[in-house]
């Protein structure tokens, strides 16, 4: 098991910074998710760790040693590529054995190592197939086995499940998690799928424009986003703007632009500050009728309702803003478009974020 650290990494392409002074420590044995929109620098960071990119500034440390000058093939990494990059002319066995055979391992040992790893990814019996004859999920497992069989120090996954359909993706998420736990390898993976990042990762980093916006366990980042981008990219958030009226103890009173007041965690606010609160749609309750707005309450009109089995998502027009509300279908109450409603939530669900 090994730990990876990137220090002050910068990579520019012309005027665009793909990586802008990124520093990050990947802990031994953790599964770390790099999440962000395309062009956010997450893939560049992964490829810098792999050694495919010459950084303009900064270092990549593997167990404290700077591996910048070391070429890719001597770095002892395992990588799974977006479309798996299986060798089309080799069988499953030869694909998996490749890393061992370029290391000149004796044939007998190769055979036992390959059999062992194919057992781990549950692909025993398909040794002689060519990649073309495998399903997407099976190809994914071969790619994973091939990356793991050399017992690398780090495993890098580039959008590992992106090419699979939804059902298979969920299945493979569980598999990936199990295999990573069993092998105990430090793993960094890149994804643009927030759900995948939350399901899989021990920790995530949300990246945007070559910088890390927020870093932490998925639950922390989800419940306590520190800025608009993090709140909006990981999950859905409603942003309520306003101005701080008073602060007492660890509570701040905020006048909302949409009308009414909110009570939120003080979070360093002082009276007179402008504030943005993020409120998750599932934390908001809906009641019938347009009562006058009280604290942590807004009244508005339903403009859309999307039923999706276990839940319903409402879109509620409040003044000039549309608020998303997510309701479990355990309550018998249903609202139709044009119904006047009152929205309410508890103070602790107001999350102050940087504008």
């Amino acid at each position: 098991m090994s730990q990876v650290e990137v220090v002050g990494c910068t990579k520019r392409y012309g005027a665009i910074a793909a990586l802008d002074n990124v520093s990050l420590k990947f802990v031994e044995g953790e599964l770390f998710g790099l999440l962000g929109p395309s062009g956010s620098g997450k893939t560049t960071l992964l490829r810098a760790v792999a050694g495919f990119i010459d950084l303009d500034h900064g270092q990549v440390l593997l167990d404290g040693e700077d591996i910048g000058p070391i070429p890719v093939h001597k770095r002892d990494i395992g990588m799974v590529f977006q479309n798996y990059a299986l060798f089309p002319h080799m069988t499953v066995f030869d694909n998996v054995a490749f890393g061992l055979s370029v290391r000149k391992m004796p044939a007998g040992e190769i055979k036992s190592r390959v059999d062992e790893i194919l057992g781990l990814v549950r692909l025993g019996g398909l040794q002689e197939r060519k990649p073309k004859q495998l399903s997407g999920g099976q190809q994914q497992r071969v790619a994973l086995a091939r990356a793991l069989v050399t017992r690398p120090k780090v495993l890098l996954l580039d959008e590992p499940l992106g090419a699979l359909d939804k059902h298979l993706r969920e299945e493979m998420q569980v598999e990936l998690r199990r295999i990573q736990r069993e092998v105990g390898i430090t793993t960094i993976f890149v994804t643009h799928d927030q759900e995948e990042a939350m399901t899989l990762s021990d920790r995530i980093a949300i990246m945007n424009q070559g910088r890390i916006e927020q870093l932490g366990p998925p639950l922390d980042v989800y419940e306590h986003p520190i800025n608009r981008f993090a709140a909006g990219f990981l999950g859905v958030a409603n942003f309520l703007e306003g101005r701080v009226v008073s602060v007492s103890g660890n509570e701040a009173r905020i006048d909302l632009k949409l009308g009414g007041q909110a009570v939120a965690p003080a979070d360093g606010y002082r009276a007179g500050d402008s504030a943005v609160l993020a409120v998750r749609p599932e934390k908001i309750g809906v009641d019938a009728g347009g009562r006058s707005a009280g604290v942590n309450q807004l009244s508005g009109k339903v403009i859309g309702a999307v039923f999706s089995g276990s839940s319903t998502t409402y879109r509620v027009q409040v003044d000039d803003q549309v608020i998303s509300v997510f309701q479990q279908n355990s309550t018998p109450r249903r609202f139709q478009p044009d119904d006047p409603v009152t929205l309410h939530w508890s103070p602790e669900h107001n999350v102050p974020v940087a504008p």
Partner: protein
Amino acid sequence: MKRKLDIGGGIAKTYLALVLLFLYVPILVMALLAFNRSPLYQMPFEFDLVWFKALAENDRLLNAGWNSVVIALVNTVVATVLGTAAALAFSRYQFRGRQVMQLLLLPPITIPWLVIGTAMLVFFYWTFPLMGLRPRGLHAILLGHVALSLPYVIIVVGARLADFPKAVEEAAATLGATPWQTFWRVSAPIIAPGVVAAALFAFATSFDQFVISYFLAPPGVTTLPVEIYTSIRKGFTPEINAISTIIIAVSMGVMLITARFYKFGGER
């Protein structure tokens, strides 16, 4: 519905059979007459191998055949190596002049061989003596054949390289393969079918080539097509049928064998 489609398929197959008849009948007639005893192609048909025996003693034809094989083989090696190298450069690097260079492949393909062949004759006549070479001869013929084969090799190998999954080379590197190992164990085997197809194309282009050789062959030194042409014009015997039959049988045989390994249409 199914019935109707079958009838359509039947008509299609019948028509294709007629086209094949048109394509193969002359070749079959010619081959058949190679086994007929009469020197004047007269009927009735009497099976005899006399023309193949005569061929075995015809030094001129055999010599020309040998020249053709040697030139085709050297041409294949040279054109495949040079063409593959150029195709690699086009697929690996973006550089200024790349498109112009690719456009330059069109003239050798589209200008009639008659024009190219005579142009070579003029140019070689002026320049080769300066280097102490004769303007015509097997060396000139080889130069010309490679020129005609090169654009095809670059295009065929280039098409294969365009489909090349670049990530597999990165994958090989992450698995610990050196650039050298990556090339020989991953890249080369994936490109190989394209190179083999290009090599076959180069061989066929050269072995088949008549026009260029015709202008660049001095008296007394010939390739097989030139020798056959001369014989046809001088008044021919079924020996020509015999050698033609051998050529066609061998080239079709080679193509059939390769077709088993490689899909020419690139489709199912």
